[in-house]
């Protein structure tokens, strides 16, 4: 049971990560391959503040979020002129720089030794020590994050972000200050990744640079792509599937080195199948999905006689 709860904690952390990455990649159209760096920055800042300086959990988390968001803006400023592949390479480089800093700035991060003994979260005197307590906390934080991201995306602000993804020049010609919007999108995405990072740090209570590698970014991008770019529900589904998918093989009696490799194979096969059969992801962006679902239920209600007038189909 504790094992399942552990998986669910990880799933909620990955939901925050993939949803936040989707703001940057799926909604604003900036191919960001350095998301693990923001995850790591949040984790390190929060862990160090809580452990070394002894700040309260909530203060450490807030600084972790702010630190990651600032890093997002910082990487954004020189990269704003870049698009597509070029931006991907630049953010990838940024991710590697952050990992190198974590590894080599030994006086602060202890380098490859990592930071052990990060305190468990404590809120108003209550300590979230056990897995099921932490599960509650992480699910609550995940729901608040997803709700906030949903609110940001489905607003006039989010509409401008999507217009930038669709056509930057047209967006400029309508008077949108796209530099401001891109920086904000990066800051929001990075900030939520930082939140996920500090959740992770205080949950595992140990972090080291190997957690925040490029492979981790690839996993997050896979979640976004699997679920569907530009679909928040898709990101949630993608994160859950890719967190749980490789787990069953733990129960097969196989040597550990085979298990580790087969995880990678499972991810690859899942993505290849997806690209072959549903390139838009499980839930590709569909602006009319809500209307269609509403129509389905209204039509059903009319068929079985709960509704007297036939519903109007919008499309």
């Amino acid at each position, binding site marked *: 049971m504790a094992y399942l709860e552990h998986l669910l904690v990880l799933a909620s952390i990955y939901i925050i990560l993939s949803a936040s990455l989707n703001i940057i990649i799926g909604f604003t159209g900036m191919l960001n391959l350095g998301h693990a760096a923001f995850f790591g920055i949040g984790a390190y800042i929060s862990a160090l503040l809580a452990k070394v300086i002894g700040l309260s959990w909530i203060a450490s988390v807030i600084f972790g979020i702010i630190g990651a968001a600032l890093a997002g803006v910082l990487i954004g400023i020189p990269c704003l002129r870049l698009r597509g592949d070029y931006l991907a390479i630049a953010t990838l480089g940024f991710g590697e720089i952050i990992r190198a800093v974590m590894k080599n700035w030994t006086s602060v991060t202890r380098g490859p030794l990592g930071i052990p003994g990060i305190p468990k979260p404590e809120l108003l005197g209550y300590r979230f020590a056990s897995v099921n307590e932490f599960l509650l906390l992480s699910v609550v934080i995940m729901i608040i994050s997803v709700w906030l991201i949903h609110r940001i995306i489905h607003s006039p*602000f989010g509409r401008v972000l999507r217009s930038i993804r669709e056509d930057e020049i047209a967006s*400029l010609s309508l008077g949108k200050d796209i530099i401001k919007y891109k920086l904000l999108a990066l800051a929001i995405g990075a900030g939520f990744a930082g939140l996920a990072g500090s959740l992770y740090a205080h949950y595992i209570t140990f972090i080291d640079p190997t957690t925040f590698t490029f492979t981790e970014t690839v996993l997050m991008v896979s979640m976004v792509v699997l679920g569907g770019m530009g679909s928040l529900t898709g990101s949630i589904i993608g994160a859950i599937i890719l967190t749980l998918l490789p787990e069953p093989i733990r129960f097969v009696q196989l040597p550990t080195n085979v298990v580790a490799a087969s995880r990678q194979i499972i991810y690859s096969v899942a993505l290849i199948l997806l690209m072959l059969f549903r390139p838009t992801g499980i839930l590709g962006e569909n602006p009319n999905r809500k209307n269609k679902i509403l129509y389905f239920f209204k039509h059903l209600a009319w068929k079985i006689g709960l509704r007297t007038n036939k519903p109007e189909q*919008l499309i």
Partner: protein
Amino acid sequence: MKPLLEIEHLNKSFGGIKAVNSCSFIVPHGKIVGLIGPNGAGKTTVFNLVTGFLSSDSGKIKLDGVSLVGMSPDRIARMGISRTFQMIRLFPHMTVIDNMMLAIKNEREGLFDAVFRIPPLSTEEKHNEERCMEMLEYVGLETKKHEKAKNLSYGQQKLLEIARALIADPEILLLDEPAAGVNLTMLKKIGDLLKKLRSQGKTILIIEHNMEFIMNLCDTVVVLDYGQEIAVGAPHQVRKNKKVLDAYLGNIDVKIVT
């Protein structure tokens, strides 16, 4: 009265090519001005200079007396210049209504409003949507409200792009070849729309190769050749100008042998 748009000795070179060469003309308030000339004469470059997508080498561009030189394209757009593009630039995967809602003046597109929504966004969004729907009805796209922009026909996309430029309520509308590739019925519709806009006091600068369309519509025609204006005047004057005939309209008497 001062002209709405003033262009004075505008220059722009790409390498050794002078795309715009000391070009000057004005667009008065409430008029439709046509910008014509052979391919490569610098018409679209002038548009890109005015809207800030390119920066000029030298010269003046003034909107209502305010210099636009050095301003970013988004700022120029907010000052009241709307444009369409030669190659249609819509937001293809967004719905028709979203395309329109993005163009309408909206003070509440910030992050703060997205998160806190004080006061609620819904009233304003509803009001804006009603205005967009009026405009869509005006161009005959009201039934396509929830359709993705990429699923519209070419002519409908052109109309949507014009409608989107109009809903921003600009001081001046810059249209880059609105009639290209559009069938006759649609062409008449666009022409009527532009005349109606003029009667409402709107100012329009239009690039077009369809001479019949231009000559019937415009109050003034500016003819560009090699980046320079070679003739400015009323359509009936310009079409008899020798330079214009040589450079663009052609002066060979075509005799059809039957």
